[in-house]
């Protein structure tokens, strides 16, 4: 034990030894010396193990000795009027990917998918993508203007929008550039950076079609909607009217039971289920009904997909079916051989997830995973499947199929059609290689 390089580990000095394992300890476990784990509680008591011979203690200190939390008075209610995660959870936070963008007001903070459960993203961990920083807009000064091909160009206050009939729906939002760093080669170590421009929330708001119907939009000519943000970037994107007419597009103010967070567009954002995040315009101030697409900056020089023949695909918006295993995933270490619950998420911009298959041999053989309910259209679906790790190298993959029958492709299949220089819409099967040491790393295997 004394040889362990504790001191070299940033931020590690103060932590209780039972809470984590040092690299050398992990190696011992991986090498099959599991006896080490049994002695870990002795270490927890602060005992130094001097060599081999020592008596078995009567049990674990945490059980035998009354702990402070069981022998003291706890905190009062509303000690934090707005609750916080446990201090032991601070490792899981939104993070930027160094070198991806140049300035953090035109950047991305990725969600820590490696530690998340179920399908709902905690609002504080929702990914962020801003083009011109975020603002916290005074909701009493926020207005929504609807203009263009409507009978009456109209202004709404938040008071008014929040009086209208509301719906609440669970949907994923994924940036079109999610997994974009991996088009050419493996570039980043963990699922936070490969897939973390993805979140899923319950959104509450008014159906845009109801508002347009109320204002009498021109159904024949008004085949496009321009959504515009009220921030400095004035983000603008064109939404085809057929999507709005499906009744799915929302003027949303609620997210997971509270108002939207400022980083996510407080007090009003567009929700466009199945479509990439950039169209979910935040701080929404204006909807214009028009008769042609608008070719805005973020649908002409960005969010266009460069094809091998040099043409740029414009208005690519719908997120095809995709999935990823989040536990275990890149940058993690399996602590021992034996049983693991392989868990991940699947989603499709075209509807419900029908099936998710998981392989542990790099795609030779597959087993269908258990889908957790609810399985909702254009929402994350959680899948789980048991796996016994025998200590040999393995490659874990998941493959989603949606209700249209579309099967998530392999990266080589995507590249065969779209080349390697695209940035957006990489929905390839993700491979995680498990080494004999238990270390899981990001690879591309097919």
């Amino acid at each position, binding site marked *: 034990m004394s040889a362990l390089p504790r001191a070299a580990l940033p931020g590690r000095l103060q932590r209780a030894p039972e809470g984590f394992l040092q690299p050398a300890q992990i190696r011992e476990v991986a090498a099959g010396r599991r006896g080490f784990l049994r002695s870990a509680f002795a270490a927890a008591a602060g005992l130094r193990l001097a060599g081999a011979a020592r008596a078995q203690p009567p049990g674990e200190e945490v059980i035998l000795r009354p702990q402070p939390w069981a022998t003291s008075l706890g905190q009062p209610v509303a000690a934090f009027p707005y609750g916080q995660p446990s201090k032991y959870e601070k490792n899981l936070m939104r993070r930027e990917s160094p070198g991806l963008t*140049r300035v953090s007001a035109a950047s991305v903070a990725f969600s820590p998918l490696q530690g998340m459960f179920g399908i709902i993203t905690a609002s504080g961990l929702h990914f962020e993508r801003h083009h011109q920083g975020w603002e916290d807009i005074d909701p009493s000064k926020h207005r929504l203007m609807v203009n263009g091909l409507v009978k009456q160009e109209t202004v709404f206050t938040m008071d008014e929008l929040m009086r209208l009939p509301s719906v609440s729906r669970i949907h994923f939002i994924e940036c079109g550039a999610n997994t974009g760093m991996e088009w050419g080669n493996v570039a980043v170590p963990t699922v936070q950076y490969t897939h973390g421009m993805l979140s899923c929330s319950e959104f509450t708001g008014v159906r845009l079609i109801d508002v347009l119907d109320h204002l009498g939009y021109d159904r024949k000519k008004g085949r496009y909607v321009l959504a515009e943000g009220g921030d400095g970037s004035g983000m603008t994107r064109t939404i085809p009217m057929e999507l709005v007419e499906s009744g799915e597009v929302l003027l949303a103010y609620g997210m997971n039971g509270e108002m939207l967070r400022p980083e996510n567009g407080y007090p009003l954002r567009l929700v466009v289920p199945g479509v990439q995040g950039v169209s979910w315009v935040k701080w929404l101030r204006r909807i214009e009904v028009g008769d042609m697409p608008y070719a805005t900056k973020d649908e002409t020089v960005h969010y266009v997909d460069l094809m091998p023949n040099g043409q740029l695909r414009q208005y690519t918006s719908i997120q095809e079916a995709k999935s990823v295993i989040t536990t275990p995933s890149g940058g993690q270490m399996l602590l021992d051989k034996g049983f693991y619950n392989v868990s991940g998420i699947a989603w499709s911009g075209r509807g419900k997830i029908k099936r998710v298959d998981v392989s542990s041999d790099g795609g030779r053989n597959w087993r269908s995973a258990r889908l957790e309910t609810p399985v909702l259209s254009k929402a994350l679906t959680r899948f789980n499947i048991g796996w016994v790790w025998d200590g040999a190298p393995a490659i874990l993959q998941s493959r989603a199929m949606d209700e249209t029958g579309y099967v998530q492709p392999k990266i080589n299949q995507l590249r065969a059609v779209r080349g390697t220089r695209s940035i957006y819409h990489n929905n390839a099967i993700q491979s995680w290689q498990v080494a004999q040491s238990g270390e899981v790393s990001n690879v591309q295997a097919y």
Partner: protein
Amino acid sequence: MSRLTEFLHGGLRVCASGCTALLFSVAPPAHAASENVAQVGDWKGIGRAATPAEVRAWDIDVRPDFKGLPKGAGTVARGQEIWESKCATCHGVFGEATHVFTPIAGGVHSEDLKAGHTASLLKPTEARTTVMKLSHVSTLWDYINRAMPWNAPRSLSIDEVYAVTAYVLNLGSVLPDDFTLSNENVAEVQARLPNRDGMTMDHGMWSVKGKPDVRNVACMKGCAVDVKVASVLPEAARPAHGNLADQNRTIGPVRGVVTAAQVAGTAPAVPSQGVAMLQLANKGACLSCHQIETKVVGPAFREVAAKYKGDPKAFATLIAKVKNGGQGIWGAIPMPPAQSLSDEEIGKLVRWVLDGTPQ
């Protein structure tokens, strides 16, 4: 209930033919609501008519057919003045800079103006500049008008937007030095854009009825017989995202891999000054913008040490700078005020930076 009000209230989702004509031939009530509530309800009094001045103030978008483009004009020469005083700090004098954003100009050749396709988009090594990809002048005009300069959007006049748009296209080898861009000749400029024919809508990812372009099959047994690992994480990228052990839960079936420590066995018992300072810098989020050797968002710590070598005032000045944030010494990008560090910790970090970041 009239057909009109029924229509307006969404009672008829799919209109019989002639319905639109009816709707637009009948003068509507001031608010399209009525006594009779179908599904949606009576929304009378909710929302008010936008005034013409309000619509003018907010409806600023310019479409590819130039609908929305206000009258005005600006010369390349005037655009250069604006560019050099208001844009070049971030985008570079020639629109070439990469420290804030991708390059704006470059990569366009005279043949492209004839072809309508930018040839260098096919070159894998070439950075994709804005002008290389641009297929509509309206896009550029609209974006500069709505969002630039980045730190002071909507501060340019209409004529200034024309001028600086002209200058960006001049930098991008599209317009000559003596050009005046105006609402009158903008369509001619559109016809010169290098990548005007470079967009395609031939894909299934916009329409809900669109067909995916890539297909896999859900084979279950004995599928890919010869699995190859085609790409692995480069060794250098492993620590580039910080210590992964600190990005994973400390309970549960797995732990994060330690990527920021020295090799086991060779590690000293006490963290070296370098490791301790890096921990501190990490805690203060400095490392998201600074590295020791290379410039990221902020200057490399070695550059800072070199700049202030022998300057007795540097210690105090830099402590204040890190504490309060600031810009202008190394460029236009501001440093935010340090958070989550005590004054003492900031002092230690600045000392260490000035000492040349010893190990």
